[in-house]
């Protein structure tokens, strides 16, 4: 099945002993089949919570408001049994760290066979054949040997390929890659990006790529959502975000990307200040305390969502003018 994903007014709150953490606030998002969506932001901005909510893997102490619609289904309203039925079938997740993503005491083949447990219609031998085909597709040739291997016998890059193969094996309509290259070295990262670019040509579901690496996002995505402190501050197609960013945070983030510097700098630029505490949020714009362009309404009123074009939207008082 391929369907669009619509996230409306999604808020996620974690109840903790230190009070309630408002990890995600009023997030709106849309993805059509065949699109690759990028989610970018610094650590702690809510990227992982958003992904976890989409994959239906939020912990028990999380409470969810708003809706995540996938086709005709509202994912937030499902009971655990139905959620489980979706996971690994319609929705697949490629995790952050390929080093720890697989069970260390079971062979790759054993795990990949288990991961196809939704396919009741085919036997073990067919499942093995599908694994071999899929491993070939992600660039692993000696599939039989690899299936008999344990995870620690594979390199990091190879494991991430296997993780991608595992996700694709389930024929998901929604493929989520949570920081797919963060744990890899630069060469491996380039290879995995190349692989994902290849794969997206023949894949027609929704792909969501989460990263704090702007280069990865620019290489892979059609549209980008920029997150800050649990909110989407700017969204738009990849060109608009990279060449015509309107939110001061997006601009600051781009200015900090080391890949954009053509000369050696004495000091790398940084965004001064740090993320606000998610237990006590500022009244107005969440970015106001760190914003260089902050003016009178910013600390007092939450910013409006300004639509700059059909696809480009920004939450900023400054963008209204």
């Amino acid at each position, binding site marked *: 099945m391929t369907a669009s994903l619509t996230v409306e007014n999604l808020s996620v709150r974690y109840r903790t002993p230190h009070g309630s953490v408002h990890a995600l606030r009023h997030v709106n998002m849309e993805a059509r089949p065949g699109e690759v969506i990028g989610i970018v932001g610094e650590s702690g901005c809510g990227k992982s919570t958003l992904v976890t909510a989409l*994959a239906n*893997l939020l912990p028990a102490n999380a409470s969810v408001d708003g809706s995540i619609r996938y086709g005709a289904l509202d994912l937030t309203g499902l009971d655990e049994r139905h959620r*489980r*039925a*979706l*996971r*690994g*079938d319609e929705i*697949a*997740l490629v*995790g*952050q*760290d390929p080093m*720890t*993503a*697989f*069970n*260390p*005491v*079971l062979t790759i083949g054993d*795990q990949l066979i*288990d*991961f196809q*447990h*939704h396919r009741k219609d085919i036997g073990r031998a067919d499942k093995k054949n599908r694994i071999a085909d899929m491993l070939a597709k992600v660039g692993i040739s000696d599939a039989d040997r690899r299936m008999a291997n*344990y995870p*620690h*016998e594979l390199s990091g890059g190879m494991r991430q390929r296997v*993780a991608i193969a*595992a996700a694709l094996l*389930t024929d998901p309509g929604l493929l989520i890659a949570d920081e797919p290259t963060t744990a890899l070295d630069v060469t491996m990262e380039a290879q995995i990006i190349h692989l994902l670019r290849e794969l997206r040509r023949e894949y027609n579901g929704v792909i969501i790529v989460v990263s704090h690496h702007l280069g990865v996002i620019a290489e892979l995505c059609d549209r980008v959502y920029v997150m800050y402190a649990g909110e989407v501050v700017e969204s738009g197609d990849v060109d608009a975000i990279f060449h015509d960013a309107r939110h001061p945070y997006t601009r600051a983030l781009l200015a900090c990307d080391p890949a954009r510097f053509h000369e050696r700098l004495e000091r790398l630029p940084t965004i001064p200040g740090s993320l606000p505490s998610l237990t006590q949020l500022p009244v107005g714009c969440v970015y106001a305390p760190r914003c260089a362009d902050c003016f009178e309404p910013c600390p007092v009123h939450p910013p409006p969502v300004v639509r700059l074009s059909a696809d480009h939207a920004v939450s900023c008082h400054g963008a209204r003018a």
Partner: protein
Amino acid sequence: MLTYAVKRIGLGLLILVFVMVTMYAAVFLVPGDPATVALGPRATPELKRLLTERMGLDQPVWWQIIEFFRNALTGNLGYDVWSNRPVSTLVLEALPNTLILGTTALMTALILGVPLGCLAVVKRGTLADHLIGVLSVAVIAVPSFVVAIYSLLLFAVTLRWLPAIGAGEAGDIGSQVRALILPALAIALGWIGYISRMVRASMMEVMNEPHIRTARSFGLPEWKIVSKYALRIAIIPTISLVAVGLGGILSSAVFVEAVFSRPGIGKLITDAVNTRNYPVVMGTVLMMTAIYVSITIAADLLIARLDPRVRDVFRG
């Protein structure tokens, strides 16, 4: 793997030698001449000399040790001072009873302890989890000989459901099983608690590992995640614990066999110590140590089999 096994067995033999040397040193250090103690103050010097010679106590200690191992290699563990029967025969007669008792106790503990630990993980934070926790700690705290005495009073003396002493009639499986229940329970009870705690603790740790999240993200059922993905890892520390604890099981067998007057290694060794029957003590200790060492090796090999990462460390 083979090098690893050979290394482990070599180390095991070294442990055997070390234990026996310590045992001889202990005998040597205990005040009083064993022959005098055994025969009483009124024995004639000739009789004492005879007994000392028969126990080999007139030789230097190092010679006794060498002699002991040379004989042990040919299957001769010496002779009972009083009955003059070969120690190896005595040990082999008593061993099956103890092995049956120990194995039954261990199996009971595993069969009940592992699922209880898993259940506590699946139901973590609920009343069932807390109840299992409290009961586990309670049974760990009670020594096995206390369980033995009270269960004997309750089930054998007051209720008369089960026999109080012995190992059952020879050839009558029913009576042997009935005689096994109370002693096995006395040993197993604390271990049920240990194992369920251990399984729960290591499984809780495993359940937080990222690969469990992966398994969940593929929608695998929770029971499969617990019983296959988590247990395969969580069982490893439990196997080590059980292997190490086997010494404990064997020593509780000594008490429990004494309480139930059940023939076995435990009873053999207690009687031998009481009558200063050194050849029997030595032979039995050697046997017990050999069993203990082989089970530890077996456990290590089993762990290497279960965990491919360990296997690779020892390959090469």
